[in-house]
């Protein structure tokens, strides 16, 4: 029931904010702040009430809820929460909270309507993370787009309309393909078992011909890969991210992209094991291409937000790389990546927003030497830049390290290239630092340092990213059961893609790895 409440609270809060927005501007801000805080409290309570360690014996599911909705089609209003969803929810509410704070002094027009959209996006995202019914999933999947479209289209920067169209059309197109896949799955399952239902758990057992499985998986992938995004389906992202208002960018980068990753974990892996295994090498290849392509483009951008946008293209490459490595390390890495990337990129967008407040440009060629007058900002920027280049001690390192060490078990060469991507990451990340904070101040504006409110936003993020970097265990424990759940289908896959604890004795004779490399893990599919 509490799950339903989370969504209802957000939606109600949104409507309330809209209505009160006509009275004055302060109210909606406070309302949405409180709404999100309430949900955050709920989520935290859920977490503390369920010590992660207790999950392991009694299965992954912490809480669930099922209400009949469209019985004719076997559509139910099924919500369920496991470690993964809980983590995503926590991230959602934290970032939502920050998004509200960020827009506090940024949004002055139509404040009420703004917060309505903000809260409804969050509601949609929450729904996506919670639902266990494919119809409902698609429903929420679409619901979260409209308000996002408005956020970009109304409060965005100069080129907002174009960006909004692009975002909307890309996501819609891919979503419809997923819808087709969902429907076919529905009918296939129905014709096999006679039970026509969209329920996730029912559909899990469905079996189909390899070709069919492939097609269905592509249907789902279409939606998730566009959302993630994976090169070459990424071109909506830079526009959307750079044109959206700060809060919008934060939610886009921090949450919307994660719905794609979540979809991969929750649906693609367990529903289509054979197809996934067959497709794995190509998916990982896409991931690597994404990592490198994103990094290369990020390096030459002059629009700060656009630069950061391309860095997320690069970082999301790690996600798909890890997902299709099918082992615990990699998936843990992916989950970490989802969270830490949400924080670090979110923070970078917020910093960009702060700078935009001060000098009214996003062009880094016009910046420089801000460290002199804004040391606090500099230090915090330093932290998150380092996070984005994966400096150990910060959360992103754990994520990337686990992802890579996991994907190495599956495919050596691709992992090597992915690792090279880290060097490129260094190049573009340091470029931010150098262009913005080093050198001489070229603007005539005097850059004043972070205000109290801004510190209130940034400091928690710094603490979180440090915590995740130095003691990520709680997160890992929380995610473990659900990751095991997703991996069930892969426990009987070829030995060489499971992580090689027992390798040490299995290969005591002098083995010639160089020749093994090509035959390892996902790579066999490439032949």
């Amino acid at each position, binding site marked *: 029931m509490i799950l339903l409440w989370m969504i209802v609270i957000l939606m109600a809060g949104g409507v309330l904010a809209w209505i009160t927005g006509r009275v004055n501007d302060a109210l909606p801000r406070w309302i949405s702040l409180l709404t999100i805080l309430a949900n955050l409290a709920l989520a935290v309570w859920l977490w503390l009430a369920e010590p992660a360690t207790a999950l392991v014996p009694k299965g992954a599911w912490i809480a669930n809820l099922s209400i009949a909705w469209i019985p004719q089609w076997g559509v139910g209003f099924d919500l369920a929460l496991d470690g993964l969803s809980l983590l995503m929810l926590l991230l959602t509410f934290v970032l939502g909270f920050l998004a509200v704070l960020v827009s506090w002094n940024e949004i002055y027009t139509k404040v009420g309507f703004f917060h309505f959209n903000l809260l409804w996006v969050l509601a949609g995202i929450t729904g996506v993370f919670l639902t266990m019914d494919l119809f409902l999933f698609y429903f929420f999947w679409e619901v979260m787009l409209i308000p996002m479209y408005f956020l970009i289209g109304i409060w965005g920067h100069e080129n907002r309309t174009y960006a909004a169209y692009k975002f909307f059309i890309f996501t819609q197109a891919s979503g419809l393909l997923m819808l087709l896949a969902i429907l076919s799955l529905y009918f296939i399952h129905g014709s096999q078992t006679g039970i026509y239902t969209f329920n996730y758990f029912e559909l899990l057992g469905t079996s189909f011909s390899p070709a069919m499985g492939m097609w269905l998986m592509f249907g789902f992938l279409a939606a998730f890969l566009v959302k993630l995004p994976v090169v070459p389906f990424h071109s909506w992202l830079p526009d959307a991210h750079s044109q959206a208002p700060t809060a919008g960018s934060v939610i886009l980068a921090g949450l919307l992209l994660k719905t794609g990753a979540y979809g991969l974990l929750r649906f693609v892996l367990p529903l289509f094991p054979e197809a996934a295994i067959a497709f794995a090498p190509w998916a990982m290849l896409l991931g690597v291409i994404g990592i490198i392509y994103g990094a290369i483009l990020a390096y030459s951008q002059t629009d700060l937000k656009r630069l950061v946008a391309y860095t997320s293209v690069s970082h999301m490459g790690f996600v798909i790389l890890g997902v299709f490595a099918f082992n615990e390390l990699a998936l843990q890495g992916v989950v970490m990546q989802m969270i830490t990337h949400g924080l670090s990129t979110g923070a970078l967008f917020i910093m960009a927003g702060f700078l935009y407040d001060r000098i009214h440009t996003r062009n880094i060629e016009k910046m420089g030497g801000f460290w002199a007058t804004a040391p606090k900002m500099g230090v915090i920027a330093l932290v998150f830049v380092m996070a984005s280049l994966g400096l150990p001690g910060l959360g992103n390192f754990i994520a990337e390290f686990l992802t890579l*060490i996991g994907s190495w078990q599956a495919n050596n060469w691709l992992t090597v290239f992915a690792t090279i991507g880290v060097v490129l990451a260094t190049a573009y990340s340091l470029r931010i630092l150098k262009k913005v904070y080093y050198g001489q101040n070229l603007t005539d504006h005097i850059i004043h340092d972070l205000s109290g409110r801004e510190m209130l936003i940034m400091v928690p993020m710094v603490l979180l990213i440090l915590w995740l970097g130095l003691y990520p265990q709680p997160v890992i424990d929380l995610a473990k059961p659900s990751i095991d759940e997703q991996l069930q289908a892969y426990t009987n896959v070829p030995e060489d893609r499971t992580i090689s604890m027992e390798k040490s004795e299995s290969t005591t004779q002098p083995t010639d790895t160089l020749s093994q490399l090509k035959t390892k893990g996902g790579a066999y599919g490439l032949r």
Partner: protein
Amino acid sequence: MENLIWLIPALPFLGALLLILFGLKMPRIMVPVIGAGSVGISSLLTIFLGIQFLSDGAAMYVQHVWTWFSIGGFSPGIAFHVDALTMVFIFVITFVGFLIHLYSAEFMAEDADYSRFFASMNLFVGSMLVLVLADNLVLLYLGWEGVGLCSFLLIGFWYREPANGYAARKAFIITRVGDTAMAIGLFLLFQYFGTLNIQEILTQAPQTWSVGSQTAVLVALLLVGGAVGKSAQLPLQTWLPDAMAGPSPVSALIHAATMVTAGVYLITRTYVLFELAPTAQMVVAFIGAATLLIAGFTALTQNDLKRVLAYSTISQIGYMFLALGVGAWSAAVFHFMIHAFFKALLFLGAGAVIMALHHEHDMFKMGGLRKKMPVVFWTFLIGSASLAAVPLISAGFYSKDQILWLGLAGGNGSVILYIAALLGAFVTSIYTFRMVFITFYGEEKTHISHMPGFWMKLPLVVLAILSLLGGFIELPHNFAHFTLFTDYLKPVLPVIVIDEGLATIEWIFQIVAALVALSGIYIAYLFYLKKPYLAQNMERSKFAMSLHRFWYSGWGFDALYNAVFVRPYVYLSKANRSDGIDFFYTGLAYFTQWLNSLFTRTQTGMLRTYMMGVLVGAILVVTISLLL
């Protein structure tokens, strides 16, 4: 005591934290107190720890602070491992570090970003300690990257100067290239052992791999990749000279004494893997040889005082690599320690000089400082003597002579290596004293603005003493059987086997080495003090000039890398700035628009057209139904 190990790295971190949080608010005097104080305390702790370690003769201390993360049996911890090898390193890091902090307290006193400086320095000392204390490779990697970050911050410390920013970035990126190789090495190790705990790997490796197994070679080489990056060896040496953009204490601490020797530490730490991979070890030896020569010759031609020192650092680390390559583990570590002393000393001295001549770096604008700054001069002279390995009196002689000797007589030693090392020694003594003579002799060219005070002199003196006496704890066999250092390291590092045939005639080689060093000094004296015109004459010849230019540019590596990697990458990136893939989608959009304009033409608004449409439709429908 061994439960307090964690304090050693923790204290500098604490200092850094305090300085970051309150650095801007606290009174100026507090900054060095916290900065130097924290390092000082941890150096004291180190000394206590060392005393206890020696007294109770334990093989190693291990302290497990907390489990970093734990997934399916893979659980690297925040855990510290202390053994003889580590002791040497943490001693050097904390003690030399402390001295340099003291020095900086005065050296940086005028700088606006006083607290930022000390914060970064403390952060560095902390990370460096983590690096050497780590008991697993992941934690080591943390320290490894941490020092990289601090080096980046401190090279770019004077950030208003764009050049410094570039230098900092260059350093970070190039070392990151090496780190990537190292990371892949870690993946490979994990794949085979399912753990990254150093000791476990070292014990399991011999059972897993036989000597010469390809995997072992691969792993070793990947680790070497990391090492050459950090230690500025071929082919990744180009960043270190530019790194001199940082303040002199930084160069002393990071780019001479400690960080750049991390590579040496890494290889020594994982020596078992290298013994399993002779090929890789050979590679290390030859990298060392090549580097020490190239860097040496480059140093000959530099005018910038600090760049000379930078290249000499590269070349000295080359010696260490050579030693590692031939399996003279303890010799390498010994040279590391001695080098830390005298090179730190030299940089600090250079710093004092540069500061005195208000930030003048060019040697040829200096001169005649011998009388003006006696303390600096004498300490600098001692340091140079040690660097040039002046026989018997200087510590450098003992450490380097050992390497020369083992390079020939050691297990994997060979004549080529020996000759390279010898030639290197010769060049070293030339450029060292070239530096000394040009800087301190001759007539004064620039007015002296600032004389070093007590806090700057003290470290100089202490380090000078160390670089004189430090050598006597390890004497060549034929002097007296007095080898404290090797014996001390014996539990950790195997003692190298010596070709007994040569052992009898070791004294010949010692004399050769001594003569080489002295003759080098004499040549320097001849060219740069007695008969300067000789040098000018030589430089007039076309060949010499081009050679000079070539060496001056550091054998053209920078140009090469720019041409091969940097420019193409930047070009590619800029060329594709507006994302080629996007054109496909925009093209799609335009196509539909074009279709629209096409279709719109059918809506003429005229009845005739519409009726025509209906008729055509009818005909089509009928024909279709008739055809089928």
